[in-house]
């Protein structure tokens, strides 16, 4: 009787055993402990193909295996990787009409399977991403590209639809590496989704190759014996573990010393300091173009407006009080940015008055005054503009109260910043109500959700943004008037504050035909100044990428412009 009833249980355990069969090859622990590198990313890697992901963790894990033609170095300059040199106007690599760029490739590079790397692989990588059905996440790097052609085995020409003064979008940086044509040739278009084997273990030219990949968990690498630089990489094997949270990742490097490198440690500064005190490792900072900023809504977000809410509507739907430049100025003047840095960021943040704080050619110095808060001046400006304090201490004019709904994504540092800014604003008579929204919803672009940052159903919102690479043209072009989000573009517009300036739009046009040099820098800076001085956006904190390394790990050069693992071939103990 007992046995008979046990059968369903037995069947289940048999099923369990079938599923539990370990399909992975055995990973041997390395004999020499010290030639093994342990990397910890608290977001686990999902796929080793940046073209199908776009997530930073996936891009960086892949950057150990597949390489672009050129890297950005830690100062934002370009260094050739698979290319023999960086094409410029001077050396003839960039055409006079700025409509094409020709890359000369290194001739002696081999894929890790022993076959030679050629221009056809580069052309294929371009075709792979440009295929409309593929859903390529790096498509922005290929903006305006009409063709990527192999002229001979070691020359590639990329042609553009329009003049491209900055033609270093495709194949520069870890976002658009070269994949092997031989391996991926059956993976074009819709088939890209089905190539699990390729996406999990791309063959590359980089210092490492994937031995074993477990999605959303861990990757084991071993050194690529055929890597073009002799004697590199120094490490023979590497483990790339994922999961957990930032604080425990920091602990694993700085306190327990179990790992050599941990990525993206946005942890409260005092917690990080305490961990560093254990003396097992060091914190690395890289200041790129990340700026935590406030977006100031220029359109009316009144909930009574129905579908007209937060729509630009050719300027007919102006915000009742944030359209007043005096109010926007006062908002910025009241904020003590140093306090925000000290409480939420520590050494990982600096006060900034620019939307583009780096690289040097584009970093404006015209707005530094904002670093010193001046609530008295803010009060004076508001008084002068006719915003008078009522009995409740909140300023009002013609029945319009200065009452702000201030939203951001859910994150303890952001909520801390929100609370501080609320105090600063209430001190100058601006009522502030706080709201936070789960990051997946806030940054998710579901057009049906009222809570996305694109919908912007609030007066002010805060988040961090940055730009890819070192040229801000695309970033700036995102804020032209016409790109305000609304139903006409499925809320996909990038001009989130919905601010409009004719001078800005004209300068963006000019930037798009100005080659690198003094003029381009001047225009770039001016564009930054317009946004900041109009206070469509209020920059707060220039944020660093924060990582940690163990004391024994040498050769790490923290790079905010490209993959942090860009020079992993040089890492050693």
């Amino acid at each position: 009787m007992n046995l008979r009833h046990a059968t369903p249980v037995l069947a289940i355990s048999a099923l369990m055993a079938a599923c539990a069969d370990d399909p992975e090859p055995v990973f041997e622990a390395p004999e020499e402990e010290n030639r093994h590198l342990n990397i910890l990313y608290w977001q686990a890697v999902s796929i080793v193909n940046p073209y199908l992901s776009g997530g930073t963790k996936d891009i960086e894990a892949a950057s150990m295996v597949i390489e672009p033609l050129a890297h950005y170095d830690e100062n934002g300059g370009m260094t050739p990787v698979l290319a023999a040199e960086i094409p410029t106007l001077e050396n003839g690599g960039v055409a006079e009409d700025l409509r094409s760029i020709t890359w000369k490739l290194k001739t002696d590079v081999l894929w890790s399977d022993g076959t030679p790397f050629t221009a056809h692989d580069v052309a294929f990588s371009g075709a792979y991403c440009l295929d409309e059905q593929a859903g390529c996440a790096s498509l922005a790097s290929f903006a305006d590209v009409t063709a990527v052609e192999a002229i001979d085995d070691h020359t590639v020409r990329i042609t553009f639809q329009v003049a491209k003064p900055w033609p270093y979008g495709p194949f520069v940086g870890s976002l658009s590496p070269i994949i092997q044509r031989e391996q991926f040739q059956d993976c074009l278009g819709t088939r890209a989704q089905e190539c699990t084997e390729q996406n999990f273990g791309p063959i590359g030219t980089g210092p490492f190759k994937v031995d074993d990949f477990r999605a959303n968990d861990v990757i084991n690498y071993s050194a690529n014996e055929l890597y073009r630089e002799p004697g590199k990489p120094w490490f023979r094997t590497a483990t790339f573990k994922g999961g957990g949270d930032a604080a425990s990742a920091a602990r694993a490097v700085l306190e327990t010393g179990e790992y050599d490198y941990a990525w993206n440690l946005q942890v409260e500064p005092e917690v990080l300091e305490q961990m560093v005190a254990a003396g097992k490792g060091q914190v690395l900072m890289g200041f790129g173009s990340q700026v935590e900023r406030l977006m100031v809504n220029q359109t009316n977000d009144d909930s009574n407006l129905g579908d007209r809410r937060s729509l630009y509507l050719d300027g007919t739907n102006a915000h009742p009080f944030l359209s007043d430049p005096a109010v926007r100025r006062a908002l910025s003047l009241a904020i003590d940015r140093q306090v925000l840095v000290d409480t939420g960021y520590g050494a990982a943040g600096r006060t900034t008055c620019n939307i583009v704080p780096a690289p040097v050619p584009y970093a404006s110095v015209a707005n530094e005054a904002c670093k010193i808060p001046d609530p008295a001046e803010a009060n004076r400006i508001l008084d002068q503009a006719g915003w008078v304090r009522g009995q409740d201490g909140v300023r009002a004019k013609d029945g319009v109260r200065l009452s702000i709904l201030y939203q951001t994504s859910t994150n303890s540092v952001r909520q801390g910043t929100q609370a501080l800014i609320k105090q600063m604003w209430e001190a100058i008579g601006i009522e502030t109500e706080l709201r936070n929204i789960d990051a997946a919803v806030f940054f998710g672009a579901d057009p049906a959700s009222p809570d996305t940052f694109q919908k912007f159903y609030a007066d002010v919102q805060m988040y961090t943004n940055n730009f890819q690479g070192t040229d801000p043209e695309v970033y700036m072009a995102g804020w032209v008037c016409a790109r305000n989000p609304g139903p006409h573009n499925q809320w996909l517009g990038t001009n989130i504050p919905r601010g409009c300036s004719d001078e800005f739009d004209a300068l963006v046009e000019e930037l798009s035909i100005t080659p690198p040099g003094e003029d381009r820098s001047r225009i770039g800076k001016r564009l930054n100044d317009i946004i900041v001085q109009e206070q469509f956006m209020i920059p707060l904190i220039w944020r660093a990428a924060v990582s940690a390394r163990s004391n024994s790990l040498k050769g790490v050069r923290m790079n905010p412009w490209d993959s942090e693992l860009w020079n992993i071939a040089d890492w050693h103990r």
Partner: protein
Amino acid sequence: MIRYITRRLMFAVPTLIAISFAIFALLDLAPNDPTGQLPLTIPPEVRAQIRESLGLDQPFHLRYAKWMEQFFVNEPLNLIEEAFDVEIGDSSTRPRIRSWATRSPVVDIIAERLPQTLWVVGLSYVVGILIAVPIGVISAYRQYSWFDQIGTFVSMVGFSVPTFFTGLLAIILFSVMLQWLPSIYDTTHEVTDLTSFWVQVKQMLMPVMVLALYNAAQLSRFMRSAMLDNLNLDYVRTARSKGLRERAVLLIHVLRNSMIPVVTMIALGVPTIFSGAIITEQIFRVNGLGQLLIVAIQGADIPLVQTLTFLFAVLIVLFNLIADVLYGILDPRIRYD
């Protein structure tokens, strides 16, 4: 009994279909976006194309029908093919349920995760039971003794202090201060000899014990009250007056009868082993099914969330049935026919 089981199984089918629809509809209504976690540098047009490539532009009923076909037809066929090494029809063009984040078949990822979860969470369940039953028995037999008081205290602590606290405490104590145990679980570790077995024991110790404490706390209270219910019954007095040894009275007569509700409880709890321990897996980076689920939820990886939660639903329905059947076997007074 057979008739009863068949009837229950037949009822389970519409229940599960309703559940699958509810899960799918809920996930669809949730304001979540698979491209929501990507860096803001990826422009909205590109995001739209990514969503399209994932099939998100199709209407709800089509996507649901597709998932049903993939789950109930394609995946089982695929399992059969792999198990018996045969090919049924054209298997290369048969679409499988693919995760949006990894673009790989969801079932393969789940199979890869099962061992970790079964080992760590399953073992903690077993350890929990092994701790709970004796504590429950002794606590009840010596009610209000110091052992009972301590047992009550420990189970209250275990029950009320969350695992994210005990887990962190254990890490700070054993990994940071004493440096005895690793704080990060190595899922690729293979046990080949005694040394590697010891490594495995060391890395499993903390997560297993933290979870076992939690499981034991619940069960031991249950065991204790079941024992207390039985200890005062007439049959116990009869057994004692027959001159049976106290040991036999307690362990054969009382324990057996008290186990009836406890076994049911244990059976009902088995599905939670599969659903993993989301928090504990996160803390120790065990990266089992619980971690898989939470990562999928955060990344709006709908096919993965849908499939996982549905599998959990199947297990819950199944183990409810098993618990009911076990109850009938253990307690001859209960008849289903």
